[in-house]
């Protein structure tokens, strides 16, 4: 007789989900599924809409990373117009995309995961929360707030508002950058960099404590995917897809993102609304790959900014050239925050950043367009087909969190095997299962294009399918 544990719902992630853990006759975990139970269907909602509206419409997929969707959507419409974004417009898109990554990573690390890292997974939940962090390590909490606030402010200053800024448009951006805005951002960057460096120093000082936990915390062999530039450096806006295997060997060195469908398949499983992308040359389910900050650092040669590269070198010295444990998403996220701040500074010091020409204009010149960029959680694909009048006939979105679907399921199974004992669900185990999912910082609102709040159920099932125990957040 097999038995099943269900965790329902997972807290401190974006969206709504449920975890079932299946036991066998001996009470051992034999399988685990991370179910995403929301459905939205943005790929259908957008059909019949003018393609120029796509950045604004698809931004509504998510209140956390609307900028990422606007960037990918605008790039897809650029492709349909057969134009390149005005160079300054492209650089300004880069800046706002980086600000999005900085604020989202700050949310994930400081607000969602730092309570576990500071107090430990077995700590009293009454303490293991953001106010507990504020009491125990107020400097860390203040740094987190400061970094996130700057990221949000940059989005607001550039885009006009924090959520769904209407500034990113096909062909570039709607308005040039004001000198005063540039100077205001540049003035704020040094303190944010210092805050990121303090957080990295704290994390590194604590890392040895987590070595044993990391060994079984979503630690397995997969491929990794991310965008890199011509020199193989991290590129969060554009470039080529690079995919490596678990040993760092390139599976594809440089793929034009427009050819994504030749390499990425999308499987559908009956137990989740979240699609399951896989690396086609390896088939399903063997073609498991990971995206996001850890994958980006694994696939790239370097980040391309000096302070972040210094930290990346230390990261690789401590963990290896290819980091396999999902636990290290936290570390990678901090390095990307530092890189993002440095890169914003570099871009804003560019000689043409205040140019008034920020938008290329054209009509529909192709019936199909693909836009790919790096969202905080990983590679984001927008693919549209339109009619002669630019009306969307078909859309396909592969969302960062979706790319990690197979990896999240495997991570949950590994943690459940390590920590589930007997037929009861207990808090430390529950939090570990949730925490391994939080490593991926999944945004289920995006990935299922779902409405509403996130929550999690955990269910333990017997071999015959009966429920032995449930926990609900």
């Amino acid at each position: 007789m097999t038995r099943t544990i269900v965790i329902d719902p997972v807290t401190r992630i974006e969206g709504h989900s449920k975890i079932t853990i299946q036991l066998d006759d001996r009470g051992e975990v034999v399988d685990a599924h991370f179910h995403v139970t929301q459905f939205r269907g943005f790929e259908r909602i957008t059909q019949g809409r003018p393609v120029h509206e796509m950045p604004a419409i698809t931004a509504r997929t998510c209140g956390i990373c609307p900028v990422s969707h606007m960037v990918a959507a605008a790039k897809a419409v650029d492709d349909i117009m057969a134009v390149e974004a005005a160079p300054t417009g492209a650089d300004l898109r880069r800046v706002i995309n980086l600000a999005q990554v900085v604020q989202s990573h700050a949310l994930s690390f400081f607000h969602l995961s730092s309570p576990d890292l500071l107090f430990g997974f077995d700590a009293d939940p009454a303490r293991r929360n953001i106010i507990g962090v504020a009491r125990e390590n107020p400097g860390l909490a203040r740094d987190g707030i400061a970094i996130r606030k700057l990221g949000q402010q940059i989005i607001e200053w550039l885009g006009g508002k924090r959520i769904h800024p209407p500034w990113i448009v096909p062909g570039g951006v709607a308005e040039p950058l004001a000198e005063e805005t540039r100077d205001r951002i540049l003035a704020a960057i040094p303190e944010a960099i210092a805050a990121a460096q303090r957080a990295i120093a704290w994390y590194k000082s604590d890392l040895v404590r987590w070595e044993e936990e990391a060994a079984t915390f979503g630690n397995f062999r997969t491929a990794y995917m991310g965008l890199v530039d011509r020199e193989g450096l991290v590129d969060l806006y554009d470039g080529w897809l690079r995919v490596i295997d678990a040993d760092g060997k390139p599976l594809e060195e440089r793929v034009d993102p427009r050819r994504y469908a030749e390499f990425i398949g999308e499987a559908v499983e009956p137990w989740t609304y979240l699609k399951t992308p896989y690396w086609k040359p390896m088939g399903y389910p063997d073609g498991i790959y990971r995206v996001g900050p850890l994958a980006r650092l694994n696939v790239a040669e370097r980040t391309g900014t000096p302070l972040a590269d210094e930290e990346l070198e230390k990261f690789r010295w401590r963990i290896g050239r290819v980091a396999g444990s999902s636990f290290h998403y936290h570390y990678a996220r901090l390095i990307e925050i530092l890189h993002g701040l440095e890169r914003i500074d570099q871009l804003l010091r560019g000689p043409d950043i205040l140019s008034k020409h920020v938008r290329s204009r054209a009509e529909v010149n192709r019936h199909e367009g693909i836009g790919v960029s790096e969202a905080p959680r990983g590679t984001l694909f927008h693919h549209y087909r339109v009619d002669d009048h630019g009306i969307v006939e078909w859309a396909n979105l592969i969302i960062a969190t979706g790319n990690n679907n197979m990896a999240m399921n495997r991570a949950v199974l590994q943690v459940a095997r390590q920590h589930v004992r007997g037929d009861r669900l207990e808090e430390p185990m529950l939090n570990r299962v949730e925490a391994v999912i939080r490593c991926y910082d999944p945004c289920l609102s995006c990935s299922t294009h779902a409405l509403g709040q996130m929550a999690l159920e955990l269910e333990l099932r017997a071999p015959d399918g009966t429920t032995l125990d449930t926990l609900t957040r």
Partner: protein
Amino acid sequence: MTRALVIGYGNTLRSDDGAGPEAASILAGDPRLAGAEVLAVQQLVPELALDMSRASIVVLVDASVTGRPGEVTVRPVVAAGAGEMGGTAGMAGAPGPSSHHVGPAELLGLARELYGAAPSAFVVSIGAADLGPGEELSPEVRAALPRVADAVAGLVGRGEDAGPG
């Protein structure tokens, strides 16, 4: 220099849940709130604690599922401590608030813990009639907006008379 902070929050794509942001857009032009900072946000996030710590009084405006449609209520906010976080249904001792969303009491608690300032704070709630997908407020909620403005202006006026909290 401290000043009043008004935060209207909610999802403008969920009908009456957008009452807070709509109220904020009206209040931003209300002469009774001249000098106050008025924000419209989708949801409460931790970094608002910094804004709150700098304010003399904070008024949060939100839709509520508990009141009658269009009913306007005012309640004071008491800063939460670490042991008072979360409390989500279904599991005793659940850790803190889910995702990025924190409540008024937690934000005030953060302001106190991190910045040493917890101003007097109030929530002005508007009873919602419809929280389904949509960008329009229900007639009951729209009709309540002038009363919301009066309530916020009254709180801010009293708070500023009393000086920083």
